[in-house]
């Protein structure tokens, strides 16, 4: 016990600490787009292998609709439930403890695994640079350094963390726009795109388009992470909707430009297997400046994604611990930096362990499926939210239009994406379902007894309708 406790005892009043409210809409944008933009630089193109170039474009826009629904629903609920934990906290208030536990775990697993995958990408990029100079580089120390450096940044404060994310994410986005301008000839010179020659009919028909939906998620996976900043923004009612919807618009533009440039430069048979399609497109244009720009863009996108993932995974873990869904010890706030420092520290070895498995495909599939389970939850969460707290009964920063159409569309598109995932990764889908069922049993039988039921609801909300 130090001076703080002594002073508190002397005044007879219990001193409290909280996360720092310093963020604005720009930081929310940087968090959401930062996590996602790496999906434009790599990963989305596997949808081309499933459905051809046109199939990938259909997947891009159909899954874009899914995420637009996610962004609208999230903006409404989070502008009201302004607490760290995002969808976990929403589930706790609106559905119940078991759903909250599962959603919290989806978030921690999805973001930690994505962080590991991003760090692996950074290691592989540096290894590729060394290979160009004829050297063999061990990527592992750079994977660990990426995770350690970003965790340190997160540990020291959320404002600097997300300001850095804004700068590197904006750079990565501008790099895509510059590539588009160069390829189309708008920025000077003629167009080098060969859409007329390269675009072909759907190679595997409509079933291929359906299968492409799973990889279409790469364009947008993680935009829902903006919710995790809710407790640290100066005005949740303004910043969360502005940052999330602005981020979604940015991603729709980036995804469409990416598809347009890559499908006009690379035949679909090669594009579907490329590791870094945007960088490959820049190389095909024969411009050293563009090649360097897109290489840095790829590196920055991976780093920004890992940075945002550390932020989000730690907030989800912290929130669960604060409510004793996980050991309460992890629910501590740093007295100087005002960050969930124990949660950040705890997740470092977890992320490194995932990264060292080297199983990039499985790690990402697990991450995507955890995300998909979260979106499915959102579709019925919003119905119950509107029923328990109808419009006018509670202050909302944003009200999404055409309810219940977005949640019906979201539910249907999630069902289609589950089917698409089952076609390609049936075993993984069943394994992850089994995993979450087992941990749910553990939570009910062993963990829930530690949860102090009254203490987890401290939000000054009106009583729900019907209670």
């Amino acid at each position, binding site marked *: *016990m*130090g001076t*703080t*406790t002594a002073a*508190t005892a002397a005044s007879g009043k*219990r*001193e*409290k*600490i*909280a*996360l720092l*409210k310093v963020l604005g809409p720009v930081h929310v944008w940087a968090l959401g787009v930062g996590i996602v933009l790496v999906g434009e630089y790599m990963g989305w193109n596997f949808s081309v292998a499933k459905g051809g170039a046109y199939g990938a474009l259909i997947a891009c826009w159909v899954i874009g609709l899914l995420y637009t629904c996610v962004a609208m629903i999230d903006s409404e609920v989070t502008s009201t439930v*302004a*607490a*760290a*934990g995002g969808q976990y*906290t929403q589930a706790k208030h609106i559905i119940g403890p078991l759903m909250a536990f599962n959603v919290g775990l989806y978030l921690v697993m999805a973001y930690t695994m994505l962080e590991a995958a991003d760090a692996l990408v950074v290691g592989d990029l540096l290894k590729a640079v*060394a290979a160009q*100079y004829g*050297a*063999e*580089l*061990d990527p592992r*120390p*750079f994977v*660990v*350094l990426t995770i*350690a*450096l970003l*965790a*340190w940044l997160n*540990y020291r404060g959320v404002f600097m963390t997300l300001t850095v994310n804004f700068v590197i994410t904006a750079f990565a986005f501008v790099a895509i726009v510059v590539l588009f301008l160069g390829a189309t000839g708008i920025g000077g010179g003629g167009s080098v795109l060969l859409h007329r020659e390269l675009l072909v009919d759907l190679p595997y028909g409509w079933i291929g388009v359906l299968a492409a939906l799973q990889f279409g998620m790469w364009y947008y996976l993680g935009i829902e992470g903006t919710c995790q900043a809710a*407790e640290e923004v100066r005005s949740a009612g303004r910043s969360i909707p502005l940052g999330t919807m602005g981020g979604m618009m940015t991603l729709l533009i980036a995804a469409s430009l990416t598809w347009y440039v890559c499908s006009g430069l690379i035949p679909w048979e090669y594009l579907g297997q490329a590791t870094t399609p945007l960088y490959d497109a820049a190389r095909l244009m024969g411009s050293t400046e563009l090649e360097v720009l897109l290489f840095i863009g790829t590196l920055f996108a991976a780093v920004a994604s890992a940075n945002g993932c550390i932020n989000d995974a730690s907030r989800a873990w912290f*929130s669960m611990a*604060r409510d004793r869904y996980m050991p*309460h*010890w992890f*629910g*501590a*706030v*740093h*007295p*100087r930096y005002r960050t969930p*420092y*124990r949660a*950040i*520290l705890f997740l*470092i070895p977890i992320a490194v362990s995932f990264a060292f498995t080297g199983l990039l495909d499985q790690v990402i599939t697990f991450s995507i499926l955890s995300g998909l389970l979260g979106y499915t939850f959102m579709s019925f969460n919003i119905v119950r939210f509107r029923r328990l707290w109808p419009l006018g009964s509670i202050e909302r920063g944003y009200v999404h239009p055409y309810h219940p159409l977005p949640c019906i569309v979201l539910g249907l598109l999630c069902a289609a994406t589950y089917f698409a995932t089952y076609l390609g990764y049936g075993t993984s889908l069943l394994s992850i379902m089994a995993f979450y069922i087992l941990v749910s049993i553990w939570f009910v039988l062993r963990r829930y007894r530690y949860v102090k039921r009254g*203490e*987890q609801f*401290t*939000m*000054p909300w009106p009583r729900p309708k019907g209670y």
Partner: protein
Amino acid sequence: MDIWTALEYAAWALSFVLIGWMLVDARFVSTTYGEDFLLSSREGEE
């Protein structure tokens, strides 16, 4: 030792320094402040 090997060692070293710094700081915070204070954050409270 070539430059790439030196970079690998430097990356390992910097990683250990950063993680070590966080561990030492976390230990310092735990010994300086009471657990009740560190765990006093509640959702919806300033």
